[in-house]
């Protein structure tokens, strides 16, 4: 495992021939689409570079790009895996810059449409942070003034302190409290009491009460409590938002890899057109290495299609004129001209998206723990305050004094610790997950993950790496050398796997002349004066025997020798067996649900120790199974393909590897980086611990109320008591949440040791 990618890994941009030119033009169109003018002579383009993941990557990219012609500035953002380049449009085009980045060894994708919504979100987060800063400033300064009141300031001095506090706090309440007031009002309009209702009420009443006390020169004012409440609650709110936004920006970046257009052959030659401008009947050119953007019928050309994202079937399908092809398939070996039959919503990809949207809306939205707590908490608190007021009136106090005590109850019960309890635990857990390489879309997913009883895995690309691996071949050294020579020139995944194996096993490729790749068939060349062919059974002149049916195979024919078969397995991901064992050990039921043939599925299930498996499951079957399991105690779906996407959306909670199809990543609640599947079990264990910590935090907050409320109801809640109770309970809750961070460390160490053993293997 290299830290950073190398230039050798890059593909289509540098390939020659007509097909690659068409592909390059399509890419240029997409990149130009993503760029926008900043001012005359300066254009900005943003790229997503998913492989950027360390400081060395940042400096390689920035240094390399600043030297590229036409580049005015280059800035890499490691958190969002994003590159912002400004350039002189007279000297460079967006596609040139993309090529320059690829020359440095990083695959890039244009980042366009979602950039605007992301900017809006960033502005919103910044706004929240500003309010938090202002509230923090007010809390600190008012606390300073309050200390002098508590330590015995009298008469005029005390009034002065109160007046200064009032002048600081009143505008701050209006400004920093706005998010809570807005949300509480929205809740009330919808007929609900959310957590923001008691917060807003407590803050407003505390400010009003303190102001009236100040005006009469009274001894007790709660200005410090107002400011501190707002500050602590804004911290909780910001954490909540930060956690969601961080994962979303990375996931959204990956989502944008979907083809947004295609090369359409018009009256004046092929030109790139955005997807919405392509009508059925249009002729579309698809270069080798590109993903099909439309459903269609092949008019000319022959190629192999990788349809694994669509069907889960790992073996590529040969295709030629007259064949029906589906959007989302990856064109592997030769250029194809299609007549589009269905575009966008009507395409097979669109149908799956519709299926997914349906599953998503039907998915029972489990209420979040904090919201559940709020529905009980708010009415109880308000009733307690009302009862206190009536009780003291009945005991003979006047309305002002009874009101003062009732408001003190509201202030002291204001869910400060409660507001921090869940977000703090979730933000800490999300940070721990992020270090494991798992990106979480929202905290609620973590809560749902803690509850699941069943785990469903897809096979191809999830339990397996989705890449074929050569079984130990039984062939003569001569045949191996010939196969290595021919496999080296092809982009077919089986050929590439063969070439990789040959390099690893130290097989020296024979020298071959006149090598040509015949799309959909195989490779042919002259080796040692003999005609050699590598490809499908028919191409090599072999009768397809039973052995090849359960596994993918390529055949080699060297001269008149009998054909030799090379069989391939799809290797399991590292840690797949441990993951299954760990999940089963945690008392969860594990099953495999695949669209692939029964043979490979059964073999893999047996290898990993999974008793329950099902092969040849189409998206509808997957949805049905996953929904059934979700109803029976909750299901975690782990899958990567387009065919998994509806099931991912239907599951209680879902995970997808970063290598998944775009739509799969979009549908999943969590996306994990890297090859290792063990993070699935680690994430599940962490989710269980997070839930425990949140419940502990709620218990702590409740326990604190058990002590503080009787004090307040009996009229002993002075501003000093309120300040101490509020800050101490918040600190305890935050400290408890931080335990999740400590607990996650030993696992990190274990992970850090892993790449070494893998590199050695």
């Amino acid at each position, binding site marked *: 495992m290299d830290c950073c990618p190398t230039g050798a890994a890059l593909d289509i941009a540098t390939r020659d021939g007509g097909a690659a030119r068409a592909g390059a033009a399509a890419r240029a169109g997409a990149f130009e689409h993503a760029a926008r003018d900043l001012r005359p002579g300066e254009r900005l383009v943003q790229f997503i570079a998913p492989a950027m993941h*360390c*400081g*060395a990557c*940042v*400096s390689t990219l920035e*240094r390399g790009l*600043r030297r590229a012609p036409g580049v005015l500035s280059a800035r*890499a*953002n*490691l*958190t*969002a895996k994003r590159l912002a380049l400004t350039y002189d449009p007279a000297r460079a085009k967006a596609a040139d810059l993309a090529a320059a980045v690829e020359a440095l060894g990083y695959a890039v994708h244009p980042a366009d449409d979602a950039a605007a919504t992301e900017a809006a979100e*960033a502005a919103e987060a*910044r706004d929240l*942070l*500003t309010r938090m*800063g*202002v509230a*923090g*400033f007010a809390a*600190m*300064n008012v606390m*300073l*003034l309050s200390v002098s009141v508590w330590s015995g300031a009298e008469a005029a*001095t005390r009034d*002065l302190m109160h007046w*200064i506090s009032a002048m*600081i706090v009143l505008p701050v309440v209006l400004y920093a409290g706005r998010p809570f007031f807005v949300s509480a009002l929205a809740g009330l309009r919808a007929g609900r009491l959310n957590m923001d209702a008691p917060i807003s009420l407590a803050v407003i009443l505390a400010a009003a009460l303190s102001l009236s006390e100040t005006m009469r020169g009274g001894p007790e004012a709660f200005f410090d409590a107002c400011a501190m409440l707002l500050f602590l609650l804004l911290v909780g709110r910001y954490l909540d938002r930060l956690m969601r936004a961080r994962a979303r920006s990375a996931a959204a970046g990956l989502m944008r890899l979907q083809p947004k257009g295609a090369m359409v052959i018009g009256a004046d030659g092929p030109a790139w057109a955005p997807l919405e401008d392509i009508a059925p009947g249009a002729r579309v050119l698809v270069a080798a290495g590109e993903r099909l953007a439309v459903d269609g019928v092949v008019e000319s050309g022959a190629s192999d299609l990788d349809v694994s994202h669509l069907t889960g079937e790992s073996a590529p399908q040969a295709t030629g004129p007259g064949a029906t092809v589906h959007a989302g398939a990856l064109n592997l070996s030769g250029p194809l001209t299609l007549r589009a039959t269905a575009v966008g919503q009507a395409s097979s990809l669109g149908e799956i998206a519709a299926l997914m949207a349906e599953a998503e809306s039907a998915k029972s939205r489990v209420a979040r723990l904090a919201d559940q707590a709020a529905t009980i908490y708010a009415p109880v608190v308000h009733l307690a305050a009302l009862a206190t007021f009536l009780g003291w009136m009945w005991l003979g106090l006047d309305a002002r004094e009874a009101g003062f005590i009732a408001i003190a109850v509201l202030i002291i019960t204001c869910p400060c610790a409660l507001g921090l309890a869940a977000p703090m635990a979730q933000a800490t857990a999300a940070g721990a997950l992020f270090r494991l390489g798992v990106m979480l879309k929202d905290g609620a997913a973590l809560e749902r993950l803690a509850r699941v009883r069943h785990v469903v895995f897809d096979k191809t690309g999830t339990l397996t790496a989705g890449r074929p691996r050569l079984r130990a071949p039984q062939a003569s050294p001569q045949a191996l050398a010939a196969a290595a020579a021919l496999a080296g020139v092809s982009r077919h995944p089986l050929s590439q796997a063969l070439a990789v194996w040959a390099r690893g096993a130290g097989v020296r490729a024979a020298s071959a002349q006149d090598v040509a790749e015949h799309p959909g068939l195989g490779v042919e060349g002259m080796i040692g004066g003999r005609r050699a062919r590598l490809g499908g059974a028919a191409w090599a002149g072999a009768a397809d025997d039973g052995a090849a049916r359960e596994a993918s195979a390529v055949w080699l024919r060297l001269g008149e020798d009998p054909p030799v078969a090379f069989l391939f397995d799809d290797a399991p991901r590292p840690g797949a067996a441990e993951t299954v064992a760990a999940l089963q050990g945690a008392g969860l039921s594990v099953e495999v649900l695949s669209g692939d043939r029964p043979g490979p599925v059964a073999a893999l299930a047996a290898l990993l120790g999974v008793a329950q498996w099902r092969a040849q499951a189409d998206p509808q079957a997957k949805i049905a199974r996953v929904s059934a399991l979700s109803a029976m105690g909750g299901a975690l779906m782990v899958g990567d393909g387009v065919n998994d996407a509806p099931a991912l959306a239907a599951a209680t909670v879902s995970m997808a590897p970063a290598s998944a199809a775009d739509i799969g990543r979009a549908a999943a609640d969590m996306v994990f980086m890297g090859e290792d599947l063990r993070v699935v079990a680690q994430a599940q264990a962490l989710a269980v611990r997070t839930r425990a910590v949140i419940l502990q935090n709620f218990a702590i907050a409740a326990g604190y109320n058990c002590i503080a409320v009787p004090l307040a109801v009996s009229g002993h809640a002075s501003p000093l008591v309120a300040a101490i109770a509020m800050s101490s309970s918040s600190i305890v809750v935050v400290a408890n949440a931080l335990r999740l961070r400590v607990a996650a460390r030993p696992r990190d160490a274990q992970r850090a040791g892993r790449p070494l053993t893998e590199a050695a293997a």
Partner: protein
Amino acid sequence: MTNLLILIPAALALGGLGLAAFLWSLRTGQYDDLDGAAERILHEDDED
């Protein structure tokens, strides 16, 4: 009392200074790429 007349404005001004510094760092995007900033310190090649 005269002490207070100096000390309170001084305290507020210092607090305000902190707030202004925070808002400035926020506006100039210093919290946008925390992971990147942590890594950048390890490389001494920044030309600018």
